[in-house]
Each structure stands twice: as C-alpha cells, then as structure tokens.
C-alpha cells in the first residue's frame, strides 16, 4: 500500500547529484585544459618550424660564403611547402682586417659577419636568430 505522502528522507540522491556535479566540473576543466594544451602544442610546433626555417637561413648564407658568393642583402628564401613559410636573411659585415693573427699581412683577409635570419611560419609565427661568423679569404691580387 502506497503511502499518500511520499517523502524522500534519504541522503543518497544529494550525494549522487553532488558527485555528478563534481564530475561534470572536472570534465569541463579537463576539456578546457586539453584545448589549451593543444593550442600551446600547436603554437610551439609552429615556432619550432619558424626556428628551423631561421636556422636554415643561416646555413644557406654560410654555404654562400663558403662558395665565394657574396650574400644578397637582404634575401628572402622559401622555407617550407606551405604558403607564408619563408625566411628573410640579412648579412652584414661587422669588421674586416688584412692583419689577421697568424697570417701574412695584406695577403689574407679576415671578415666577420652578422647573419640575421627570421623564419616566418604559418599563422604569423616568427623566430629570429642572429649568427656571428668569421671567414678567411685570400686578398685578390690586382
């Protein structure tokens, strides 16, 4: 026989509802954090790609110097396959002397360079590296 007035006097339902609420909050928090982590990871990956592009720009200029070619200043190179992926490199001579230590004067030239390379990735990511370099070359005889 059902009682006319049913009253829930137990504690289980509130506890369960509380647990559900807490679980929901945790789930929301986890989802939020997962999204942030993904975003950070993506940003980090993009920066790594831009950094790698900047480093490759330095390597390209060092290869140009090694081949005896004066690097164009500035120069823009394709860095990757995606649109917007490029590297801009500017090469400056910071010092030049014909009196390099350990070498005949006026016959060997010592040049110091500053190579500033900026890797441009997708979504506007940019990384700039600056490399100091040094090179010895024979002085051209007239």
């Amino acid at each position, binding site marked *: 026989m059902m009682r006319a007035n049913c009253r829930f006097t137990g504690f289980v339902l509130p506890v369960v509802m509380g647990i559900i609420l807490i679980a929901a909050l945790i789930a929301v928090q986890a989802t939020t954090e997962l999204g942030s982590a993904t975003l950070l990871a993506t940003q980090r990956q993009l920066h790594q790609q831009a950094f790698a592009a900047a480093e490759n720009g330095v390597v390209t200029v060092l290869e140009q110097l090694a081949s*005896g070619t004066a690097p164009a200043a500035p120069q823009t190179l394709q860095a990757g396959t995606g649109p917007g992926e490029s590297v801009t490199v500017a090469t400056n001579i910071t010092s030049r002397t014909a*009196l390099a230590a*350990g*070498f005949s*004067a006026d016959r060997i030239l010592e040049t110091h360079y500053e190579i500033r390379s900026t890797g441009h990735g997708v979504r506007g990511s*940019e990384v700039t*590296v*600056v490399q100091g*370099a040094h*090179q010895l070359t024979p002085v051209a005889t007239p």
Partner: protein
Amino acid sequence: MMRVILVVLCALLPLQASAADAGCSSVAPTLRMRVRFAGESAREVIVESLLPSGLRLLDATSREQIWSGGPGTAHTQQIAGMDSSLGTSFAAVHLDADGVHDRLYAGDRSGRLWRFDLHSGARPSAWMKVILLADLRAPGGGRGLIASPDVARIETPAGESWLNLAIGTANTSAPRNDHRFYVLRDLLSGHRATPLIEADLEMLSPPAAPTQGNMQGFFLPLGNAQVFAQALTLNGRIHFTAVESGRNLLAACAPGTLPDFAVPVSVTVLRATDGELEAEVAHDTHANAANLRRPLASQMPASTAVTLATAEASNGRVPCTVGSELLAGCSLDTRPGRVWWRREDAD
C-alpha cells in the same frame, strides 16, 4: 784577326750578357698601397726603389711620381743613412681600419731591414718616419735582403702580440755560405731604441728543439742556400722557399732584374712563434737532415714563392703551390666558421 781576339776574350772574361740573354727578368713593381698626404684624399700608389738608393711613390693611375725619399736634397723627404738599393723588397701593412697603409718594411741589398712609419695626413716632407729595424749586414758584406719581408701579426694564448718579419738572405756579390732565414719581432706600437743585430737573435739548431723563443726573434742557418722569394705565413706557420745553389745568381742580372732561369728549390716550414720546424717536413725522407729543407721535384726560377692557388680551391680549402707543385699539408681554410649565436624573440 781582331774578330778572333774578341771571341777569345769573350770566352775568357766573366759573362756580362744582357739581361735577356742571361735569363733575367725585370721585376715589375708589385707593391701597391694606399696613402694620404695633407690636404688630399687617399689614393693608390706604386712603390718603387731608386738607384743607387731610396724609394719613390707613383700614382697608380697616372704613373706620375708624387713622392720620393732618399739621401740627398733632391728628394721630397731626406732619408739619412740609406746607401743601398732596396730592390723589390717591400711589404706594407694596415694597422688600423682607416683605409690607408700605416707601415712599410723594406730590405736592402747590404742586409739591413728598414721600417717606415707612414703618417697619414702629414705633409709630404714629413710623411714618413724612418727606423732602422735590423742591421743584419754580414762581415765583409755580400749578403743582402732580396725578397720582400713577410709580415704577420702573431698572438699567443698568453696574450702577447707582435709583428713577425720573416726574410732570408742571398748573395749580392761573391758566394757566401752563411746565409740565414731571419724571423724578427717588431712592436705593434712604438719601436726599439736600437736596431736588432744578429747577436740579439736565437740561432735555430735543428733537429734540436727550439728553446722557449727569444723575445727579439730567431734565425735558421741556410749554409749556401739563398732566399729570393717572399715567405707566406698561414695558421701561424711560415713557409718559405730557398734556392739550393751557392752561385751568385744576381751577378748575371742588371740592377732591377732578378734571375728567372730554373734552379733547385727547397721548401721549409717553421712555426712563427719559436721556429720549430714542421713535423711533416722532419719526417719526410727527402728532407735535408741538417736543416730539414724539403727539395722540390722540379727546378724553377729563384723568385718562385709559396703562394695560394685560388684557382685550385676545393671544398673551401685553397692549396699552396710553389710554381706548379702543390705543397702537401699547406692550405687556407676559407669555410666560414660560427663564432657566436643568439635568438632575439622571447616567447
């Protein structure tokens, strides 16, 4: 009859053939440098020696004489005590970055090494300060400095720094058997109060190891071998050629010319700081055991120098050659090296 007498006389007398007949070549002035006198802009000039002594500067474009120095009042600047020809023994040095040369070194045929401090912007009559850097005249004379000095800045890990002057001697009259290859130290700023003499220098005695290195310099005895070509310093090592002949090679050549006929030539490599002989040469079975000079396979003109063969560069290395012979173990590494690095973005 007269013709027969003349032929016999010519056969008996020492040959005084013309320069062309004896294999002598006029040595074209090869030293160009940049100078600046008061009230003028910097210009390129050619340095030439004068006979019997002194030197002059020619404008490199117009070839007009713009300055001369020597004994006597006829010169733009009087230089006392210069009584021997400088020949073609010149080397100029930049000590700063102002675009004009600051010092000129020259060896004369009596065995003295001169240093000329060039005062950029001074009036021509006071443009050059003359210093006798070294008096290396041999007793009795006849031993001169023919080759251009090889000037190199030397720095040690201890922080010492100086200019090395490397130059060898050759017969200027009767053959001698006491020739030397000198390596002298000059100050980067200032100068000694008195000229260097041979007694100030340490004599190398290979194969014995050199001592810690005389502060003034050292020399390698060459016996009757002579030096006509400028040395080359690479990576702190001095490379020079010597003529393995005690003949008076200059006797057949008019002043201003050098012998260009083929003679036996050797190569020696010394460490610039203390004269230690190159280990590679020391282990070469063809080296002269007494002084470790390595003879070259083919004969060549006495003035053949160790040079960089830029046309033979490979993988960033420019080899050294003596005439047509490649010099093993000698090259200039032209590959650029990384020195420092930084990243400018901070995110």
